[in-house]
């Protein structure tokens, strides 16, 4: 693993696709060919090869870390892997293929900059390929790679590759993915994974690793419209140190935009205004800070602020409403139904919410929405309307992945039941509040 003193970017990606499309093998191959597998891991692989693989090393065993996974030869939960090249550092989420474990696929994909959907070249596009592509689009993962794998089993046929590509292209316009790349490969043999393959002379594009190293990710964070969900109020209350005695800071991770020292801000939901006196950090004050930095803001006025409040700037205002609409991916054992109450966690606050209306369940065959649907079963995706016990200060998920996302939690068991993506606000916060005066 080369080491460099230059700033190195981090790319997070996940691999998905149906069972046995070769996800784990692909990650094993990436690690192996980028020389990120260590000798003791190799020894462990060789040991397990003698037992389970009839002497053949199984690259998938590198990521299938649970005993149950190795026994059944499937991936149950996300495994995270780390590797680096001189150009970038990578966090890989190997996500399960089984429909049953879609919740874990969503877990792995939710933080990704890029999603790789694997397709078995023999099988072509199947329901899971559509489902995973849809989820990648729903989660607004900015970049997608369709890895047409096992090309060795279809004689490296360019026609087959095109067929699959065209099938995808027939439904991609229905989705919200800006950047899609198709790469023919064999994860097992390594063709077009790290090294270009001589068996695909008809393919002129990059290898998978080449693409991962060069895809443009700098603009994946939201830098328009300052948002700071208040996470923790920083009050040292130190009687020994007079300077600290009066310190009062608002700590949190910036969820959008940029904030500057001296800037005017509004606190929601109260509507009080103030000015940023100092951007305090352990390493000294900053002149400005941006998403997704974690900071502590000291304000000019001593205003009542608590966790769950949101600090915003005066441009690109958010919505503030207790009646909301969202797309959800349901993960609960029991179906989601109208009238049910859940806990909802959005930015830094958890409130009760009741589902008031439900519909538009998405069919994975044609991505058509069924408005007549009355419930969402596990792994279904649909639309809900809900009322929260307190207004949320939010953006549409398409605009801001941090202030537009929520999860639903079951009361009592506290299971996480759903990933929710808010639809854009129908009206914005009015910026007509009076200036705050002491």
């Amino acid at each position, binding site marked *: 693993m080369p080491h460099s003193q230059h700033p190195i970017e981090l790319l997070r990606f996940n691999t998905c696709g149906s069972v046995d499309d070769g996800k784990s093998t692909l990650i094993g191959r990436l690690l192996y060919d980028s020389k990120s597998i260590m000798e003791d891991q190799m020894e462990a692989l060789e040991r397990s090869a003698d037992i389970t693989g009839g002497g053949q090393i199984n690259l998938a065993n590198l990521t299938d870390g*649970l005993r149950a996974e190795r026994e059944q030869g499937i991936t149950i939960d996300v495994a995270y892997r780390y590797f680096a090249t001189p150009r970038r550092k990578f966090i890989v989420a190997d996500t399960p293929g089984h429909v049953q474990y879609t919740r874990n696929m969503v877990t792995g994909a939710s933080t990704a900059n890029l999603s790789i959907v694997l397709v078995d070249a023999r099988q072509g596009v199947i329901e899971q390929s559509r489902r995973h592509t849809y989820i990648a689009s729903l989660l607004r993962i900015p970049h997608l790679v369709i890895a047409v794998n096992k090309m060795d089993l279809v004689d490296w046929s360019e026609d087959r590759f095109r067929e699959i590509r065209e099938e995808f292209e027939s439904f991609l316009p229905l989705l919200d993915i800006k950047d899609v790349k198709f790469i023919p490969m064999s994860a097992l043999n390594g063709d077009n994974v790290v090294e270009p393959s001589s068996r695909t002379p008809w393919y002129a594009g990059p290898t998978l690793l080449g693409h991962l190293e060069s895809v443009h990710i700098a603009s994946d964070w939201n830098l328009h419209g300052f948002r700071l969900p208040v996470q923790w109020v920083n009050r040292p209350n130190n009687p020994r140190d007079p300077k600290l005695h009066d310190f009062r800071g608002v700590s949190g991770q910036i969820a959008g935009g940029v904030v500057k020292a001296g800037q005017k801000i509004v606190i929601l939901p109260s509507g009080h205004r103030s000015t940023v006196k100092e951007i305090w950090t352990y390493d000294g004050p900053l002149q400005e800070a941006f*998403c997704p930095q974690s900071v502590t803001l000291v304000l000019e006025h001593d205003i009542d602020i608590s966790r769950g409040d949101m600090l915003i700037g005066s441009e690109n205002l958010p919505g503030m409403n207790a009646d909301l609409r969202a797309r959800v991916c349901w993960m609960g054992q029991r179906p989601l139904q109208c009238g049910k109450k859940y806990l909802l966690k959005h930015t830094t606050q958890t409130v009760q919410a009741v589902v008031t209306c439900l519909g538009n369940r998405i069919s994975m065959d044609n991505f058509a929405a069924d408005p007549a649907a009355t419930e969402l079963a596990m792994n279904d995706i649909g639309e809900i309307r809900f009322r929260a016990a307190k207004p949320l200060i939010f953006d549409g998920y398409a605009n801001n992945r941090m202030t537009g996302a929520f999860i639903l939690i079951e009361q009592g068991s506290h299971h996480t039941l759903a990933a929710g993506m808010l639809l854009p606000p129908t009206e914005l916060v009015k910026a007509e509040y009076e200036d705050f005066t002491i």
Partner: protein
Amino acid sequence: MSSYHLDHLQYLETEAIHVLREVAAEFERPAILFSGGKDSICILRLAEKAFRPSEIPMPFLNVETGHEFPELIQFRDRRAKQLGARLIVRTVDEAFAKGLAAPTPGQISRNQLQIPVLLGAIEEFRFDCCIGGARRDEEKARAKERFFSFRDAFGQWDPKNQRPEIWNLYNARLNQGENMRVFPLSNWTEMDVWEYIQREKLEVPTIYFSHTRECFRRGGQWLPVPTVHTDIIKPDPYAGARPKPNEAVKSLVVRVRTIADMISTGMIESLAESVDDIIAEVAAARVTERGTRADDKASEAAMEDRKKAGYF
């Protein structure tokens, strides 16, 4: 590249600070597991960054096997004092005395015995959350773990049934008796940890740097010769962990890469005298850091089994 850009360490840092503040806000009685090792040293710096100028709003907890490297204990105590934190130490020996745990016949390593001691401390102080320095790149069962890792009332981890963890919206809800383990360094690699130590100019215990030490070969590793036992009343805690007559003792220039206790830590031969040297060494390493841990070598699923039982 725009100026609004974080490099990989800054990204990992802001992610970890966010996690630490979520813990402070969502739990009533959290604790930080602090051993004095390199990962927990980073956790403490991140806690300073998350909570200063306030005090770090949680005590530090350490479970001792009784086989610790003295350098590590000294460092741990000094660092906790510097930070003005409350350090709680619970030991396997105390647990024996209280009947919370019993020695396993024929087993010299007390690694397993840390589990009841940790669970005992959680009960004693009613901790609802313990922050640990574990990283997903260390081991393949860890690679599966969430940032917020739920433990049932028996302290057990159920890997086949983890809560989905979506975006950075951590579900911190618990019922009575349940517990959370939180791992802010989940996404850090061994290299990231050393680069962070370098960037932050953090002090680490001297055993991470090369030094001369008496070692002997066992199980494919260089194990340190334990300190001489002088107490004539108490039995030698290291009986069984001392070199046998056929195990030749050699004086070697070594350092540790990952620290368990003296019985479970393999020393690596190394000339690395500074953090820069270590970074160069890690960059060139051909074995994983856990390759030097005897406790993980027991079986393919050694870590998974310990975690299910309530290990960190």
